[in-house]
Structures are given as structure tokens and as C-alpha cells.
């Protein structure tokens, strides 16, 4: 395996995980907002 291939493999793996985490964070913030709005009624 070339060094460039290994760098790309690691960057891709990290980018995928970061995308999943960011997506999860957006969903979490959405539900936090709903819950906080409900509590303040």
C-alpha cells in the first residue's frame, strides 16, 4: 500500500465518522429544542 493510499483511507474513514456525528448532532439539537420548548409552555 502506498503512503498516499493510506492517507486517503484514513481521511475518508474520519470524514465518514465526522459526517455521522454531525448528522447525529443536528438531530439531537432538533429534539433538545422540541423538549425545551415543551418544558417552557
Amino acid at each position: 500500500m502506498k503512503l498516499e493510499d493510506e492517507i486517503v483511507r484514513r481521511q475518508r474513514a474520519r470524514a465518514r465518522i465526522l459526517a455521522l456525528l454531525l448528522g447525529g448532532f443536528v438531530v439531537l439539537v432538533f429534539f433538545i429544542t422540541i423538549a425545551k420548548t415543551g418544558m417552557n409552555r
Partner: protein
Amino acid sequence: MPAIELTNPAALPADWRDILALTKPRVMSLVVFSGLCGLLVAPAMPPLVLGFTAILCIALGAGACGALNQWYEADIDAKMRRTAKRPLPAGRMDRQSALHFGVGLAFFSVLLMGLATNWLAAALLAVSILFYVLVYTVWLKPRTAQNIVIGGAAGAFPPLIGWVAATGHVSALPLLLFAIIFLWTPPHFWALSLFVRSDYAAAGIPMLPVVAGVPSTRRQIFLYSLPMAAAAIAPWILGLTGLVYGASAAVLSGVFLILAARVLVSRASEPAEMAAEKKLFAYSVFYLFALFAILVADRWLAA
């Protein structure tokens, strides 16, 4: 497939598994569990998503502590068998990335906790992170044999944070949970340090067996187990929990004291012979899990 030949593996972008290892996932599990118990025994239950977020923030805060601890102690970790294969001492990651990751995670966890639950819980989370990193890791650990005694406070915060995230205020029961973990930490870590003391000595960390000797450490383990057992039973004596917890805490603490007494009378000098010390260390982990799980069950039975 030929292996990659690199003079400096840390020049590569870190593998995600190494980034995860920076957070010390196994340590995080006990922190998350105690934080969850603090949340579950609170009289007010927040909406599920806010409770989940509070626990997530405690986990992320613990992960930040692990990353910053490994960043600061990379040189020490390289000298100990138990820690030499971690990402930084093994050279699989550069220190600056670990520092950025740890600081970023710490800020994120505190901010999210404040926005999702309340700012008192966020402040306690911030204090616990700063206490662990600055007071324990940087100040006490390399300087004094009492590092574990005072530094144990950092690990005692999670149930208090969980309770405050749910209720918005501090009261007697979460303070007792704080006291239980605070007093549990010295016997737990000193039992470990007895059979890995050569590692600590090689790294120049002044753990009690290295500085004061093995017999003194055995005495201290037993002496600290006594107030720990008293703190464990105190919630029942003060009427904050029911008989299920009180009886269980008495039995669990009694077994702890018996195992601590065995360590006290043990004459083993080589790690391979230290069966009593290893047994106490393993039991101490089970003890805390069981005590907190029974506390939650007791409160739910009473509800």
C-alpha cells in the same frame, strides 16, 4: 501487501480508533454509569432527550479529560508497560492533535450541557474537567503520594452532575454519592498501585507504595475503606434511601472491608503473588457498580 515504511508515523492523519482510544473508553464507562445513576435517583426526571444529552456531555467531558491526560503524560506513559501502547507514546499520533481534540471536546461538552440542561450542571462539569486536568494530572500526580486522595474528587463529580442536570440544584444525597466515590478512589487505586508499583517507580510517579512502602499502603487501604463504608451506608442511616439499599450497602461494604483486611495482613512482595490485592481491585470496581445500581433500584421501588 508490503507494509508502509515511515520514519514518523505521527505525520499521518491519526486513525479514528486512536482518536477514540484517547478518550479512555473503559474509564468512561464507570463515569457514565455513575452519572446516569445520579440522574436516575433524582426526584425530578427531565425529558428523555435532555437526560440522554446530560449523560452524553458527562461522557464527552470524561473523554476530554482522558485526551488531555494522555497529551500531558505522553512521556510518562512511554515508560510504563501498562500505557506504552497508547497512541501518543507509541508514536501513532502527534501531541498537538491530542491537545486540540481534548480542549475542543471539553468546551463542546460544557456548552452543550449548559444549553441542554442548566448552567449549574455545566459549571460543575467544567470544574470537574479543570480539576482532573490541572489539579490532579498537572499539579498533584507528579508531586505527592496524596495525588489519588485529592484527585479522587474529579472522578466523584459525575453523579452530582447527573443529579443537578435533572433538578437544577444540589442536595444531600448527591453530595453523599460524591463522598462515596471520593473515599472509594484511594483504596481502589492503591490496590492497583501495589501490583504495578514497579511501573510507577520507573515513570517517577510518587504513588504511595513507591514513596511510603508496601506495608504503609496496605494500612492506608484499610483505613480509607472504613470511612468509605460509613459513607456508603450513610444515605440509609439519614433516611434518604430504603432498607433494600441499606442492607445491600452493608453487605457489599462488609465484603470490601474483609478483602481490605486480607490486603492488610498479606505479606506478598512480588506482583505475581498479590492475589489479595488483585481481588480487592477487581471487587472495588464491582462494588461501585453494584452499590449505585442498587441505589437506583431502591429509589424506584420507593417511588
